[in-house]
């Protein structure tokens, strides 16, 4: 019980710190500019993925593959001895 209270105090402290930081910061923002025919910006995102960020994208596919194989290997039932 004591540890739960302690954890809660720490969590609240963190929240306070983060909140104060967020509120106390002067955020400089640029409003979003919409392109005609792409009101959600999804076309632009798609273009970026397959042009500027194509290499990270491909690497990510390999990482996923590796995680897939690793997950299967770990979770696979061991063959009967």
């Amino acid at each position, binding site marked *: 019980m004591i540890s739960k209270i302690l954890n809660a105090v720490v969590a609240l402290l963190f*929240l306070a710190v983060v909140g104060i930081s967020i509120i106390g910061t002067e955020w400089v923002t640029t409003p979003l500019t919409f392109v005609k025919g792409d009101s959600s910006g999804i076309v632009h995102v798609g273009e970026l993925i397959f042009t500027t960020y194509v290499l990270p994208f491909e690497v990510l596919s390999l990482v996923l593959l590796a995680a897939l194989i690793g997950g299967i290997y770990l979770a696979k039932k061991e063959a009967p001895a």
Partner: protein
Amino acid sequence: MIPLTYYLLLAGALFTIGAYGIMTLSNGIRLLMCIELMLNSANMNLIAFSTHINDASGQVFALFSIALAAAEAAVGFAIILMIYRWRAEIDIENMNLLRW
């Protein structure tokens, strides 16, 4: 438009909830869920900033981050499965061999 601060405060709250979960919970699967929570709060930040500085790169990275979270979850669940097979429980508090 919703001000940036709102997004950030929401993300901070989400993160704190995740962190509190990690600090208090002992079930392995719940821990993984809390980690997802924290990851998603980070994604939220990415998208919020992306929208407010008019740069779509943040959204691209949010997508990447989601994919990585999937990989992490897959491996994490596999590990927890192994632990269950080994000890017939997934209580992380008892997984304390790596100490003094």
